[in-house]
């Protein structure tokens, strides 16, 4: 908290970055952030710009483009299940070759003891090719029956009191879905959580910054502890912290941006070494691919034919 205060003051005095330092430092100017955001919104229409609370508008960004959001993103597995499935092998030095090299490097780092040799790169759970069938034991998770959190038990009202069994809920044209739920053997029921993802521009670190707000299947907010279940263990608690969203004033989980620039610089370096054009407006696609290592089971969209290859 103390640091945040200091940072808040420092941010106030940090001048807005005006000239591009994308290639040298992996950072962005606000204008570059907007350009990269525009491309993200265009290519991945699940993302959109938002203005947020007008009283919290940052002057260095257009009023209607304060941050990017994608809402209601499904997350149907806990990270633990992923890590169980890839086993506990030691980190293996990556024999970087071909287009995927930097990607695998990133995922290795993120997922800790995951092997990354040869074909196994294909097993890296980049959400695009995750299939339920391929993933071994799924851990159960506990949400209390009422799906609530916080406030003591005596505060939780009995929702049955409100129910009305006589109410006509179906007329033959209503598909009876209940909740779409993944049924697993035994009692290991995995409930699909939903996340709202936000990307703000962090003026102090001069990089994008990711914010998460999660909901359980009953649409109750997830507790910080529950959110950490969806964060790769290398990152939980250390780089993911609970902080106040700069444009909404509500506490969100945030991936701390202190290392974003150096990671992005490395990614950009790999790209250019491999003769690829590192375009600044592709920044968010690369960035989100890297963030996926932190929250590998949150199925947000970041695909773009050009950059993702």
């Amino acid at each position: 908290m103390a640091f945040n205060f200091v940072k808040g003051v420092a941010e106030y005095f940090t001048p807005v970055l005006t000239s591009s330092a994308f290639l040298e430092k992996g950072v962005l100017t606000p204008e570059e952030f907007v350009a990269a955001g525009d491309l993200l919104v265009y290519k991945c229409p699940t993302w959109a710009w938002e203005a947020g609370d007008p009283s919290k508008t940052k002057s260095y960004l257009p009023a209607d483009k304060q941050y990017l959001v994608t809402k209601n993103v499904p997350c149907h597995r806990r990270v633990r299940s992923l890590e169980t499935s890839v086993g506990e092998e030691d980190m293996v030095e990556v024999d970087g070759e071909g287009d995927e090299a930097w990607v695998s490097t990133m995922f290795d780092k993120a997922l800790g003891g995951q092997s990354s040799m040869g074909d196994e790169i294909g097993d890296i759970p980049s959400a695009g090719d995750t299939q339920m069938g391929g993933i071994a034991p799924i851990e159960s998770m506990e949400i209390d029956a009422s799906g609530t959190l916080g406030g003591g038990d005596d505060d939780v009202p009995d929702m049955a009191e409100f129910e009305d069994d006589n109410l006509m809920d179906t007329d033959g044209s209503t598909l009876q879905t209940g909740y779409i739920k993944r049924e697993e053997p035994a009692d290991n029921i995995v409930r699909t959580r939903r996340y709202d993802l936000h990307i703000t521009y962090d003026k102090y670190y001069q990089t994008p910054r990711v914010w998460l707000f999660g909901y359980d299947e009953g649409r109750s907010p997830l507790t910080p502890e529950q959110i950490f279940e969806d964060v790769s263990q290398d990152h939980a608690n250390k780089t993911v912290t609970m902080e106040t969203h700069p444009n909404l004033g509500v506490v969100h989980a945030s991936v701390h941006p202190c290392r974003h620039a150096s990671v992005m610089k490395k990614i950009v370096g790999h790209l250019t070494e491999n003769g690829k054009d590192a375009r600044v407006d592709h920044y968010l696609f690369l960035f989100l691919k890297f963030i996926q290592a932190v929250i590998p089971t949150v199925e947000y969209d970041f695909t773009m034919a050009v950059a993702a290859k």
Partner: protein
Amino acid sequence: MAQPQPSTSAFPCAVQYAPYESAVEVTFWHELAKRKLEVYMLEDTVVDVHGTFQITSSSQSVETVRPSIVLGHQAFDAATPPNELSTADTLGSLKAPVTGRLWNFNTVEEFKKVDKTALAQEQAQQLLAACQHSDARNLVLNKFFLITFSDLKKHHFYYWFDFPALQVAATQQAPPRSIGDVMNVSQQQQVCAYYDKNTTYPATVCHIDSEGNIQFQPVHDVPQSDMSNSNLTVLVPDGCTLPENPGWPVRNVLACLRLRLRVTKCTVVCVRFKGRENIQSSLVLDVTLDGDVTAEPVGWERNNRGKMGPRMIDLSAHMAPEKLAQNAA
């Protein structure tokens, strides 16, 4: 809790629509709490609220989803319904604005005792009237109604969504087809280009001319007439990814086609976007329509126990000052 039904193998069969899912963001409740304290106070209030209907899913997602309506902090902002502001709109975000009504009750007793069947009936009746209305520009088929009670001392919010629905006898003649069966790649691209600009239209009739080009005509622009002899092809973004069933928005569109155009047979393309340029997962249904259109008191959302009841969200961890202090420490 109701279980998913096994795939219906026998055709023809009645069309079954996947109900909407409400997705209310925590910032919406913050805003409601604020308005309750500063504006509504002890009054029961009925206000317009603006949400978005998500018509695209992430190209990453492997999950099946039902259509959802999202309400955020800007829901009360009458001047700027989501999607209608900002230059971002020129980029099109493939989300359709949906306007609904919120009825906030002042006491939990009132919230409990309100006659839900009558409310749903009334909402559906209004929809029916709108459908019959000659002013086509006011044709709104996607609607929601929401009752709330806010316990501001405990930071508990009770809410219950109703998605008003019309009823028409709709029969699926055969298993769903894929979009490739009715449109080639170039025509699919034309559909994508059309929706880049027209996400707000609930339904669009398309005519394919002799050169393979599609002429698009929003349903509200089709003059009321008797089209019982033609087989229309109608595009409806349904916001759903279930492999065999259309989403709830298709339901009112079919009723509207029957009511306004006397349609007896149509091909419905449930347009499903995975990203901006990919509608390959769209579902094509061959449907016959029959009989009269009626207003039904259905559409209340099930709660998280799978029962007909309201939901409650406990935001004490997010709103109570002492809890916030703990989090911040």
